[in-house]
């Protein structure tokens, strides 16, 4: 079985996010890291391999991004992926979710994976949608927000997944191949050892441009994207709340009830 894990480089969680007023896009300067949700996807792949229910021949980390995105692959490989694929091309800059999903799907076709794993959202874009777009292009079933995954050896190999939905939990049985996006409750990712970090560069990395994977130039990049970035602004600062001092609890309760009542909230 071959598992491909989609990964992305994002601004580090410690960096305060802001919109760059000149471009209307997110300011991606500063310290970067592998998208935290993607580390859970890699860990999930590693746990399938180590679980032993099925034979995992290969775990391949795949990213689309500028040259610096290679660092996300470096980390993915140090966390256990066997090799990595870097799709990078000037023509891809400015791709929206649909274009990105198409480009990634074209890249994945070349690998013909049995399972595609990814984080349910990226720390910067927070779209939650890439998995579904990729699955549609690959004509594979898609499950999102998966927080538990058990493999049942086949044939056909099946996954029993628990999804975290708004209203509770779904348990879904899915036949491979499939595209699964995982939530951070699925596992506790390991830290890469120093040896693994230093060994990562020795693992194979394929650098691909759009021509290598039959990506139509007019379907990607800013021109191939349907999303138009308009006027992004930081949300207005919230006005200060009203603090009700708790001197006498009965009185406080009355005040709160009156406040809510006034706003027709109860």
């Amino acid at each position, binding site marked *: 079985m071959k598992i491909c894990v989609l990964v992305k480089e994002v601004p*580090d969680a410690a960096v305060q996010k802001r919109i760059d007023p000149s471009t209307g896009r997110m300011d991606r300067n500063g310290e970067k*890291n592998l998208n935290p949700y993607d580390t859970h996807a890699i860990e999930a792949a590693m746990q399938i391999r180590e679980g032993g229910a099925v034979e995992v021949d290969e775990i391949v980390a795949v990213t689309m991004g500028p040259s610096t995105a*290679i*660092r996300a692959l*470096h*980390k993915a490989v*140090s966390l256990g992926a066997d090799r990595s694929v870097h799709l990078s091309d000037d023509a891809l800059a400015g791709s929206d979710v649909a274009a990105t999903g198409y480009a990634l799907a074209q890249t994945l076709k070349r690998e013909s994976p049995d399972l595609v794993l990814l984080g349910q959202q990226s720390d910067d874009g927070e779209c939650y949608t890439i998995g579904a777009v990729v699955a549609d292009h690959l004509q594979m079933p898609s499950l999102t927000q998966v927080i538990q995954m058990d493999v049942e050896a086949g044939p056909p190999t099946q996954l029993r997944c628990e999804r975290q939905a708004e209203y509770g939990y779904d348990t879904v049985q899915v036949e491979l191949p499939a595209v699964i996006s995982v939530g951070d409750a699925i596992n506790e990712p390991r*830290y*890469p*050892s*120093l*040896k693994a*970090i*230093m060994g*990562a*560069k020795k693992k194979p990395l394929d650098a691909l441009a759009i021509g290598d994977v039959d990506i139509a130039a007019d379907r990607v990049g800013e021109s191939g994207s349907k999303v138009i970035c308009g006027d992004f602004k930081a949300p207005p600062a919230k006005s200060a709340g009203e603090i009700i001092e708790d001197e006498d609890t009965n009185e406080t309760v009355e005040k709160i009830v009156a406040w809510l009542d006034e706003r027709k909230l109860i």
Partner: protein
Amino acid sequence: MDFDLSDDHRLLRQTVRDFAREQVAPVAEELDRTKSFPYELVAQMGELGWMGIPFPEEYGGAGGDSLAYALAVEELTRVDSSVAITMCAHTSLGTQPVYLFGSEVQRRELLPDLCAGRRLGAFGLTEPEAGSDAGNVRTRATLQDGEWVIDGAKQFITNAGTEISGHVAITAKTGENEISNIIVENGTPGYEQGQPYRKMGWNASDTRPLTFTDCRVPEENLLGPRGAGFKQFLHILDIGRIGVAAMGVGLAQGALDEALAYAKERRAFGKPISKFQTIQAKLADLSTEIEAARLLVYKAAREKDLGRNFTLTAAQAKLKTGRLAVRATEEAVQIHGGYGYIEEYPVCRFYRDAKILTIGEGTDEIQQMVIARALGA
């Protein structure tokens, strides 16, 4: 000149940073309060290869360099000094002598467990009569029937008295004007670790006095040639300074992190205190000095990695960062006001942890001597 870290170094730094934030920070206050040695964290760090960063893989080390080591020490200290000094003293004081001066047999026997963090190494140089004047060793070792018979005492030794302490490399007089380094393994009859000291800081780190009474170890426990002890310990201290200097930068940075976050939250006179010029000046000065000190530390590490003489830079880095850590933690407490005096806030512990950095592994006055000597003064 390239100020960018390599990808490997950057990823290591990020990993240690994540580990410190996720694994160390939640337990640091409790470890300090209960004066508990961080066994679990040491085991985890061992698995990640951080208890043997600068040693070759053939001995079980991670095969990293001094810069990698300094980065890891810095990031750990940013969150907790006790955990950092445990790793730091183990690496540059406890394990280095075995790696640098040990025979092939000693290396093969001791290094794999040390590098994996299964065993801790300690370095016994300081004595009641030999601190800054470390050559004034009183501990004696006499060769009798193929064994060194050791009598004496050591003072303030880190990592010697834990459940996983493996050995201490001590300096001993093996002749009239002759100092040698000898390995004494824990459990050797006649070698005893006293009660831990009640310290100002570094509360979760193990520091004890040691005594040797008719303690016998095999002749082969000598490290390197007989009589080379003085030169050897000077070299060990040079290397150690890079680690302690990295601690100074890390602690100062940790203090700034806390102070900045607090200043943005805390309000007075109708606005966050971070908007007051005097507070901003403190934050700006600290960040500037930290950046300058950090470059000095990385330069010392780099010089060592390139095989150059790093004695001067390491002493400068140690002098600069120890003082900076003391000042930065004091300012951080000041910015916290009364809350900084309360143990719930990490800066309170940082303040107590800082002072040792102008004393241990060569006092500031000793660094000044080393630096002045290098200047030819």
